[in-house]
């Protein structure tokens, strides 16, 4: 005991006490706090909405408002639908890590069940597009050639001809669509996340959305054939010409210099 009291004026003593106090409080809370009880009479959907509301209050409410009505930091979520929630949360774009021109993708920390609960809550705020069926975005059922035509009409101005992405204003950008899950492409077209305009089914029917997904699967995934190899980003002749001029001709010059720099004489001088 004496040892302890001798060290009570040590510069780190206050921190040590604080850590013990925090640990004790947390431990007591975990042991004594009442466990959340599901209401026995509630249907499965209303449980999902209730759970979703709790998740919403933790992860989303600070920007989108306590009731999803939006604030100066985030748009209203009334009427965005389950598809928008599924897209934003499962690609990791939401909750946003820090304010900025655009929310980038990042590893998603929510389980599928939690995302479904969040989506159920947001969908309960107002009618909006729902999460699509798997057959709606199955690339094997789409017509890639027609999808290419549609992509060039509606998408290529921002996402480039094979979905390589591109820059917009003030730090915003159209992301590269390489290896994006077909479900997320479908949901993005349907809901218009962030700066992207939406393409509702009356404007771009579901079969056409599937054609666009078939096109992207054919040209911009890790499995997509690239007959020539080295696509150089798929940007076209400018990138290819630059590569040929700098690396091709550079290599020829380097070989010529190497040949000329090595003498064939028996006695090096």
């Amino acid at each position, binding site marked *: 005991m004496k040892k302890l009291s001798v060290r009570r004026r040590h510069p780190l003593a206050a921190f040590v006490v604080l850590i013990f106090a925090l640990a004790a409080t947390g431990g007591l809370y975990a042991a004594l706090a009442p466990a959340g009880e599901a209401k026995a009479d509630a249907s499965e959907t209303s449980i999902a909405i209730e759970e979703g509301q709790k998740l919403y209050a933790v992860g989303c409410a600070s920007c989108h408002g306590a009731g999803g009505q939006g604030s100066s930091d985030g748009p209203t979520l009334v009427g965005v639908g389950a598809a928008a929630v599924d897209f934003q949360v499962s690609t990791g774009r939401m909750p946003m890590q820090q304010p900025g021109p655009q929310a980038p993708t990042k590893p998603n920390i929510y389980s599928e069940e939690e995302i479904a609960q969040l989506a159920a809550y947001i969908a309960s705020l107002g009618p909006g597009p729902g999460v699509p069926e798997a057959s709606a975005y199955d690339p094997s059922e789409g017509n890639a050639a027609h999808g290419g035509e549609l992509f060039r009409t509606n998408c290529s101005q921002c996402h480039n001809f094979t979905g390589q992405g591109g820059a917009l204003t003030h730090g915003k950008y159209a992301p590269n669509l390489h290896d994006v899950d077909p479900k997320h492409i479908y949901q993005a077209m349907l809901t218009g996340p962030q700066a992207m305009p939406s393409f509702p089914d009356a404007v771009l029917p579901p079969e056409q959305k599937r054609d666009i997904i078939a096109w992207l699967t054919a040209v911009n995934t890790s499995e997509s054939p690239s*007959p020539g190899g080295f696509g150089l980003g798929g940007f076209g002749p400018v990138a290819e010409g630059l590569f040929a001029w700098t690396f091709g001709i550079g290599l020829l010059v380097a070989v010529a210099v190497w040949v000329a720099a090595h003498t064939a004489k028996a006695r090096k001088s």
Partner: protein
Amino acid sequence: MSSQIESHDDVNDGKTPVRTGDADGLPETREHDPFADPGLPAHKPRIQDLDERAAKRSERVVTLLFTVSMLATVGFILSYALIPIDAITYIWPFGNVSPLNFSLGMTLGLALFCIGAGAVHWSRTLMSDEESAQERHPIEATPAVKAAVMEDFRKGTEESGIGFGRRKMIRNSMFGALALVPLSGIVLLRDLGPSPEGGAPLRRTMWEEGTLIINENTGQPLRPEDMVVGSLVQAMPEGLDLHDHHFHEEIAKAAVMLVRLEPEDIKDQQSADWGHEGILCYSKICTHIGCPATLYEQQTHHALCPCHQSTFDLSDGARVLFGPAGHALPQLRITVNEDGYLAAMGDFEEPPGPSFWERG
């Protein structure tokens, strides 16, 4: 004269390089004249010049390179004949490539490279590498040759009749013909000048009162309820078909994009009145040099042109926010007809697309 012609084959006026060096490559005259021409260094032999076995080895290397080239050409022909054109194979590090393209490129590249490498190795190791100087001859012809040529020329002028001969009419008509030919080129410059009808074809588009707005995706006329807030539709006037003769001429002027905003977000009252419940229809031809300015950001309502980053605020009458565009994008007045479809109320009020001479 003739002796001069013969003698300048081996002119040596002391300026051409002469082999003067001794075995060490140092010129003899160095001590006397610091600026003396050192001449060519003494020839040094290569291993192949000294060792017959090394020369044999070089010979074998060159032959091997040429043989590899031959085999590569045979490989090229075999690849062409045997590999299916639509096959796709994973080849590290290139990815999922066409094995036909890959092997054609590799074999042809190898065949050409081995020919080049063989030739370089041959010339560097086996061909004679003694440097030899060739004398430079005066460029000027001898006076006798010059006189003969001038005499021929004078005789030719006389015989053809230009200037001194009797047939002055031929000469004068030829001058006339040559003088008139450039006029054709000058007449063509008219095309750079004012447009024939005062630019009228550039001011008119296919849009008229009652023209339906066709969604380019479905080919069907648009209804206002098709568009939700934040959506973007690429559209064209009714009655235009991709296979029409004038399709490109007309779409280049008439192409439009429709966006739907919350009505309270529209800052320009006239723009709001020209739309329908927040649906606005703008020409998508950039007023700078005519690229399609359809990079639409639905949160800021900005439309960006991909060519020179001209930015238009579609919530404020497509005002130019940034970039080289000189005018706002023209807005098409739209309404809903009795069948519930969106329709134009007339042509654009001002010509769409880039400025032209008479536009002002």
